[in-house]
């Protein structure tokens, strides 16, 4: 029998770039296939060809052996392909049902009205068939990210998708939600659906997939059986050389307190407490990590520390001085470096070249602007030094920031911030959307600084990152620190539960913890519930 999906010799050229070069991909019906590669390896381009967004320069798309010529996503959808984008395509104020049926609403009265009861029924039936847990009447803005993802999958299924493409589906999920997603994928393949998922995470590819195809620089460099490979082999295929996956951590040699945050409260635009009474200290020569699912107040906390957001209560001390209400500029000048989470929004001016970007944050400084006029010679030398020292490619200070890949943009920012000789580095998601090679590099540099006695505040939603780098690790949930743990003594599962808001000790049935118990483990929480009931 022919494969469900067969991409045969796909080449896709853009002006000046070959995004895919003679790539083959075969996916069997009823299997999960991982498409693995670094950023810019051509994974998404390949899937956009399959989804009809791009027409290939050469090569052929075959479904069940039949050649296809997709001119638009509409054609691909009609042929039974569904795509779940990394950024969900959902309308927040609308309900789950309204979103699933959007564009294909069942009608009544000759099309004059939406058959709302019929739509709801169709959604419930579909969810039941695949064992999905969704509330058809909830608004998208009120449901969890995991549920939003299930809605996206249901949307594709509602449109009759047979082959589902998932683009980086785990990027926004908690570990428990990832487990749930993988269960969902199992259920889908059991019912004959075919899944392709794009990822750059080795572990997930091995766990969830049956087969793995690895892309590098637009070329297919290998197709392996997920059960007969190792992370090391995959990493080497992806990067093209051997990669050290485990960071050599070494013991912390913590010195004096560099930064102290006490009882800080930050309210967001809607007067909701995004950070709700957080206290911690970061010492010289240690990495203090903050783990948590995105949107639990990390961004606001980091912006409060760096001086980008006002603090509504509490105190921030830096090098012994109260900096709670000092300006961003003063904080930079006194030795606080900041790697922002959104490099394109906050880290760089995309239309500036690297010379100008290298100056950002130091434009008032004596060394670059004596007498208030910028010394462009020194500034250029500074940018060249960063490019050289931090391996930014292409090594051209005149290149505009937007022309660099994400990993190289990030390396440039890291270089600029580290060159300030900081006493505190606030690193917010320093390796988000960055390829494996650059991740390794950035991690090494962070630990080097730590060795030199710099205090590091690290925020990340990647567990292996915060766990691997931190000396002490706080888990944040809804603006509060749930717990501060020793990352070496804590398992990923324990961290996952903390990230889902389950306070330590709740598992024993004390303190009403089942209210926040993770959905991933309905059985134990139900038992606890029942047990409590009997006692009462």
């Amino acid at each position: 029998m022919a494969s469900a999906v067969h991409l045969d010799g796909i080449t896709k050229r853009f002006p000046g770039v070959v995004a895919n070069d003679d790539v083959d991909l075969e996916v069997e019906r009823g299997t999960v296939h991982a498409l693995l590669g670094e950023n810019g390896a051509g994974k998404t381009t390949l899937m956009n060809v399959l989804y009809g967004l791009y027409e290939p320069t050469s090569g052929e798309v075959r479904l069940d052996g039949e050649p296809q010529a997709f001119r638009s996503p509409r054609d691909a959808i009609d042929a039974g392909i569904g795509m779940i984008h990394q950024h969900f395509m959902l309308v927040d104020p609308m309900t789950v049902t309204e979103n699933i049926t959007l564009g294909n609403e069942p009608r009544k009265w000759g099309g004059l009205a939406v058959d709302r009861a019929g739509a709801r029924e169709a959604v419930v039936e579909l969810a039941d068939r695949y064992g999905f847990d969704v509330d058809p009447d909830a608004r998208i803005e009120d449901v969890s990210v995991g549920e939003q993802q299930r809605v996206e999958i249901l949307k594709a299924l509602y449109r009759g998708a047979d082959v589902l493409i998932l683009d980086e589906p785990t990027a926004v999920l908690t570990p428990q939600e990832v487990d749930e997603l993988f269960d969902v994928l199992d259920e889908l393949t059991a019912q004959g659906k075919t899944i392709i998922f794009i990822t750059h995470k080795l572990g997930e590819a091995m766990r969830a997939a049956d087969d793995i195809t690895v892309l590098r620089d637009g070329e297919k460099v290998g197709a392996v059986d997920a059960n007969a490979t190792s992370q090391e082999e995959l990493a080497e295929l992806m990067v093209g050389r051997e990669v050290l996956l485990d960071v050599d951590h070494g013991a912390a040699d913590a010195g004096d307190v560099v930064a102290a945050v006490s009882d800080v409260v930050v309210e967001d635009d809607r007067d909701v407490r995004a950070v709700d009474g957080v206290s911690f200290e970061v010492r010289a020569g240690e990495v203090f990590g903050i783990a948590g699912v995105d949107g639990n107040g990390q961004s606001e906390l980091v912006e409060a520390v760096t001086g980008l957001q006002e603090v509504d209560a509490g105190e921030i001390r830096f090098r012994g001085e109260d900096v709670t209400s000092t300006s961003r500029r003063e904080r930079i000048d006194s030795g606080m470096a900041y790697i922002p989470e959104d490099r394109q929004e906050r880290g760089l001016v995309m239309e500036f070249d690297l010379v100008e970007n290298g100056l950002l944050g130091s434009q008032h400084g004596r060394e670059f602007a004596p007498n208030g006029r910028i010394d462009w010679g020194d500034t250029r030398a500074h940018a060249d030094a960063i490019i050289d020292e931090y391996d930014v490619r292409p090594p051209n200070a005149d290149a505009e920031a937007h022309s660099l890949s994400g990993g190289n943009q990030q390396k440039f920012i890291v270089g600029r911030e580290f060159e300030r000789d900081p006493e505190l580095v606030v690193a917010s998601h320093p390796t988000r959307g960055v390829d494996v090679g650059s991740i390794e590099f950035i991690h090494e540099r962070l630990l080097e600084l730590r060795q030199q006695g710099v205090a590091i505040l690290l925020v990340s939603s990647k567990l292996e990152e915060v766990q691997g780098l931190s000396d002490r690790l706080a888990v944040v949930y809804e603006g509060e620190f749930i717990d501060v743990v020793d990352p070496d003594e804590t398992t990923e599962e324990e961290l996952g539960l903390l990230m889902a808001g389950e306070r330590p000790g709740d598992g024993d049935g004390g303190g009403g913890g089942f209210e926040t118990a993770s959905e991933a483990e309905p059985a134990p929480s139900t038992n606890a519930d029942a047990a409590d009931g009997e006692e009462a």
Partner: protein
Amino acid sequence: MSDAAGDGEGGFVERYSTRALFAGTTVAAVVALLVAGLLFPDSLAGTLAAVLTSENTLAAALRLSVPIAFAALGGIFAEKSGVINIGLEGLLIISAFGAVYVTEVTGGVWVGFVAGVVASTLLAALFAVVTIKFRADQIIAGLAVWLIALGLAPFASQVIYNSPNTPTVQTMGSIAVPVLEDLPFFGALFSASPTVYLLFLAVFCSWYVFERTAFGRWIRASGENPKALDTAGVSVTHVRYAAVIISGVLAGMGGAALSLDLGQFTGNGPTMVNGKGFIAIVAYLFGNYNPVGAFLSTMLFAGLDAVQTVLQLQGIGVPRQLIRITPFVVVIIVLALVGRTQLPEAAGDHYETEE
């Protein structure tokens, strides 16, 4: 209503609390005024109460609210789809003039009405092309629509009639519903211009479109997350064109109703439209993009305007100029109180399909 106000005072944080609080306060104030008026018929409160309970006031408020409410409905369609149409004022002006001109030429008042709607729709279509196809800034293009109409209508009148004001033509007249028109106070609802009934119909139809039809959902999706609509296989461009053109049709009905109820277009200064298109924007924002809400807030402004007109004539010892600005002061207070209206997420943004 007082329950809702109580919730608001209790600091209960929910989406409509400020609106509920405001509506509650308004109702409470009106009730207090009526009671005071009843007790002291000779005081200022007595005068105000008499004005408020008069059938003439309701009739005047309805008449005033027709152009504003039609424009507000149009604004809802455009803005919900993601196109902010601040050119409503211009659409009202052009249709007000077009309606009177064609009525004068043909002698048919309904022919004139349709002509006014066509004029407004054409201008709205131009606005749609400029903002959607050529991706012009919506605010600037909207201002241009206003300025074009503000210049064009009195100019055309000057050329044709040698005066910024047109001669008077036949009016719409009124339709009375037997028996119901004799009701105290509410009788005004049943002895009114046909445009008032048209407005009721338009409010209901707009509500129905948004709440019950697939097209209404597409408009909402187009304004909230156009990409979601696009990937669902519905053309965002088509939806936005349709919504802006509907806004032209509705505003055109408002403008035509305005001039044809009077039988004349006056083009001096800000013209007879005199800011009604801008008040319409406030009305639909205060009504939270709900057609019924927009209509009710229009009635509030129109009611205040009717009251201030009567008060000016009665002479209550307050300078006229101060009374005249009451509706606008209320507009500012309302905006300050309501504060946060949830704008459609993608309102004002251009949308490009990925290629």
